[in-house]
């Protein structure tokens, strides 16, 4: 049984087709990164999975249980199985509660006993001293607050952690600490994780598998080494080529694929393949026929692109490496 099974998930906000048919599985204990530009719908997928919103279509199974349309009451026993950590810890911690109350709240709702002891343990696990329990969130630094969010998320021992841009608001050195912590906790506790981010270096660091989202749909997914080593979809290739690497010699030898500034609207997405308006190699078929998702390699490497062959070969939109600029 997988920790998470999302089947043909659809989330429309009025005319906005934020998520439009996403199918995704996360095995027990595995980390799947969901990447894409802002507006691609990746956070909405996360919000559907933890049922902050009720999906417009498709199904979400958490540890085998269909939670897609459960009401608040019916959801309650399943809440402990999934937690979420948000980007901005200042906005997701109640400023009127102490850190101890914040971290212990999930257990209180489950009517558990020995809450203070468990809170201490949870704080220790994320590298905070027990005294922090008596502080208010505003007394902590950004990195410490994010540790508090993680402690709260993990105190109910969920099968699945949804981490929505958990490091994006933090400074580089603090990011490093939070990434290390997530890697340690995931290894020790063995929860499955949906890691939503736009930071590709963090993806390579944490994820076992990568799913690439564009305008509400997945365009490619597969094992980390395959996606970074042999990206098949032109959008994945462009995305990876655009992220600068912190090495001047290497970075200057690279040539990013420039896609243009216009992400099409999710109210009226392009016909056929949604990426065709920015794709450097699009052909007529791409403008009219929606590409099916196909398996193109081991480890469940899948792609939705007409131009990629069944053996994973296909167009490479990345310019050949030139002389240093």
């Amino acid at each position, binding site marked *: 049984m997988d920790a998470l099974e999302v089947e043909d998930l659809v989330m429309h906000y009025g005319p906005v087709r934020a998520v439009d048919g996403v199918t995704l599985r996360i095995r027990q204990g595995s980390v799947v990164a969901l990447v894409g530009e802002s507006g691609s719908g990746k956070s909405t997928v996360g919000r559907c999975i933890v049922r902050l919103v009720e999906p417009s279509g498709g199904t979400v199974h958490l540890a085998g249980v269909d939670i897609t349309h459960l009401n608040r009451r019916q959801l309650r026993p399943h809440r402990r199985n999934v937690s979420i950590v948000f980007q901005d810890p200042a906005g997701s911690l109640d400023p009127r509660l102490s850190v101890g109350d914040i971290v212990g709240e999930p257990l209180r709702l489950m009517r558990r006993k020995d809450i203070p002891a468990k809170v201490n343990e949870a704080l220790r696990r994320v590298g905070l001293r027990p005294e922090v329990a008596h502080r208010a969130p505003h007394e902590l630094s950004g990195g410490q607050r994010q540790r508090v969010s993680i402690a709260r998320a993990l105190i109910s021992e969920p099968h699945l952690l949804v981490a929505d841009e958990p490091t994006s608001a933090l400074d*580089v*050195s603090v*990011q490093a*600490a939070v*990434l*290390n912590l997530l890697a340690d906790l995931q290894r020790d506790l063995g929860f499955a994780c949906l890691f939503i981010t736009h930071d*590709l*270096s963090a993806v390579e660091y944490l994820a076992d598998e990568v799913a690439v989202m564009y305008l509400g749909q997945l365009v490619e997914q597969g094992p980390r080494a395959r996606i970074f080593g042999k990206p098949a979809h032109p959008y994945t290739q462009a995305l990876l080529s655009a992220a600068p690497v912190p090495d001047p010699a290497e970075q200057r030898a690279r040539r990013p694929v420039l896609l243009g500034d216009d992400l099409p609207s999710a109210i009226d997405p392009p016909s056929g393949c949604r990426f065709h308006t920015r794709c450097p190699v699009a052909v007529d078929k791409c403008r009219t026929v929606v590409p099916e998702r196909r398996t193109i390699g081991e480890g469940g490497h899948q792609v939705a692109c007409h131009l990629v062959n069944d053996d994973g070969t296909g167009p490479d939109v990345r310019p050949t490496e030139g002389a240093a600029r």
Partner: protein
Amino acid sequence: MTPVLAVKDLSVTFRTEDGPLSAVDHVSFEVGDGEVLAVVGESGCGKSVTAMSIAGLLPRSATVDGSVELDGTELIGADKRTLRSIRGREVAYIFQEPMTSLNPVFTVGHQISEVLRTHIGLNRQDARTRAIELLKLVGISSAERRIGDYPHQLSGGMRQRVMIAMAVACDPKVLIADEPTTALDVTIQAGILDVLRGLRERLGTSIVLITHDLGVVADLADRVAVMYAGRVVETAEVHDLFANPQHPYTTGLLGASPAAGRHAESQRLNEIPGLVPVLTEQPDACTFADRCPRAVDTCTTSQPQLTPGPHRVACWNPVREPVEV
């Protein structure tokens, strides 16, 4: 070669309710003709305050000492008229969030033309023609049509291109780019970095690039100044800095971001424990000492000065061996 911009012993102190706050302490650097100097550091290190003090953009609560010479003209203490003739014309700024820097009730054409009419006295028709040229220069397609657009009709990347067009309208000697791509997706960022590179190559504009992103530094900078707690702690040519970082803070920053191809199994990210200090006055000590893994006794009793030479470092116990990444 005489530098276009020479900053010498620049110090900035803010008056606050809790007493004086030292934001920048005796910062010196030079920017040559057509050179890109990156100023890097984490939030609160004083990099934006340094940038804003150059053309007198700081609020009245700031006391600025030292010297900023632009092509031989002293800007610190200069009268309003001098500053007004220099701002926008000799020194131009672009900021992180283009939406808040553009006026929502005027078309982008109007806003670019305004710069040209105010500073170089072009008439309406010439200003419009020049505005279209500028939009083309920064890579906006169908500029003739876009010139009639309001800011909200443009994507984030295009707004930033408009900001750059306005900034370079009067062919400034120095462009100060304060986190110009931080709010943008990587695919959009790649395009903006390309525009900045083009400006330097085609117009010979000198650029002061303020950023926390070492990938962006590796992409664009010729030289780098690393700031910590209001001081420049290391400055060197870009390849030299990445290959032979000498200040423990620099090595810490470089080790904090995940290297390409590394997973948590094989690399532990470098954490810098503690926080950037908030200083009421600069102590006679190294401000990084209490977070530094290499600190020795001298570090807490005496302030290190930048060494002379092309690769300058302010540290009592610098890293001499090449670091392994």
